[in-house]
């Protein structure tokens, strides 16, 4: 068994408190009258921080082997790949003025 420094109960509590604070924050942000895109950007940034906290502390990525980190990295990278390459098309349609309908 990996006998690395397991986080203590206190650490878990602090992380959970932090997560709840961030949840309240993300809901609060939605009350500001921002342009639509900023709601998404801010919401996803906060969510990314929260997700990272869960993965690193609750899922013990911190004390896991290198292979686990590689799996995490690959999953995140491939998700980005799917989203970014897929959205490339959607962002750039209509950018070329002479191609009606594109």
């Amino acid at each position: 068994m990996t006998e690395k420094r397991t986080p203590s109960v206190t650490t878990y509590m602090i992380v959970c408190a932090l997560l709840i604070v961030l949840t309240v924050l993300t809901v609060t942000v939605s009350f500001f009258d921002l342009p639509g895109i900023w709601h998404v950007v801010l919401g996803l940034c906060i969510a990314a921080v929260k997700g990272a906290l869960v993965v690193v502390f609750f899922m013990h990525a911190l004390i896991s082997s290198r292979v686990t980190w590689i799996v995490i990295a690959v999953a995140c990278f491939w998700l980005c790949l799917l989203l970014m390459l897929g959205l490339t098309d959607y962002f750039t349609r209509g950018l070329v003025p002479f191609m009606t309908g594109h």
Partner: protein
Amino acid sequence: MFAQQIIWFPSQASTTASRVDLLLYMLTTICGAVGLSVAVTLIYFAVRYRRRSNTPTPAEMRGNRPLELFWTITPMFIFIGFFVAGAIVYFDAYRAPDDATVVYVVGKQWMWKFQHPEGQREINELHVPVGQPFKLMLTSEDVIHSFFVPAFRVHMDVLPGRYSSVWFQPIRPGHYHLFCSQYCGTNHAGMVGTVHVMEPAEYERWLHLNAEGSMALEGRKVFLKYRCISCHSADENARAPVLEDLYLRPVHLRDGSTVIADDDYIRESVYDPGKKIVLGWDNLMPTYKGQVSPEEINQLIAYLKSLHRGETPNRVEEFAPPAATPPINSK
């Protein structure tokens, strides 16, 4: 016919075609050379180093880093060349010239509908003049189709709910296949048509005489509406002269004189058919005064202008369909 089967290249009927073929030649030459050299090397090695009774166990050979890098990086540069060449052709093929004539195209299961800017409409046939750029605005009524004319080397999916576009500039008169190349259901293979590329003068004539929405076609409808076809038919039971190739030709009358079949003569023949009777025929025709409107006369004249040998419609008796007819398109 046989020659056509042997020559498998579709004709280069648009400005894009030769450029695409050039890409083909370039890719075939380079890739063919690479492929052949791999195959030849493979066969040569296989024969040269085949196992014989006295072949010793081969020595260790792990690889050679410079060689590996060479055959990693060289293809990369060649490929970037391919990309650039292809991208230029693609870019130009999608960028219609500003003066292109816009034709709207609607695909539906399983036909193509075209509408020219002057309002003429066609189904499964597209007439275009040589030398003039055409931009097609494509959309679909139901599922995805794809507009594909091999002779033009253009290809564009036709999507429901939005317009996509494609353009071409025909350079060679002829009749070319139009295919739907995106699978669209049962009769996908029947969603074909013809693109007629014509000399500009011929196209002008066609544009005014033949296409739906044109005077001539309206005239044809008038011709059928008043059942003119039942006597002026092209078969042996005709009871009146056939009207093919009539316009501006001399007509020999029963009284020995000759008239030129111009607009006035045609109008007169409809409103007062007994006045000038054609040699060899009896006067059976009643007057249509009060029935055929002046506009319809104009349309009839336009139709007769366009009516050439062999183009008279067949005489078809019309019956009212029985009450419980199944819809026509169900089998």
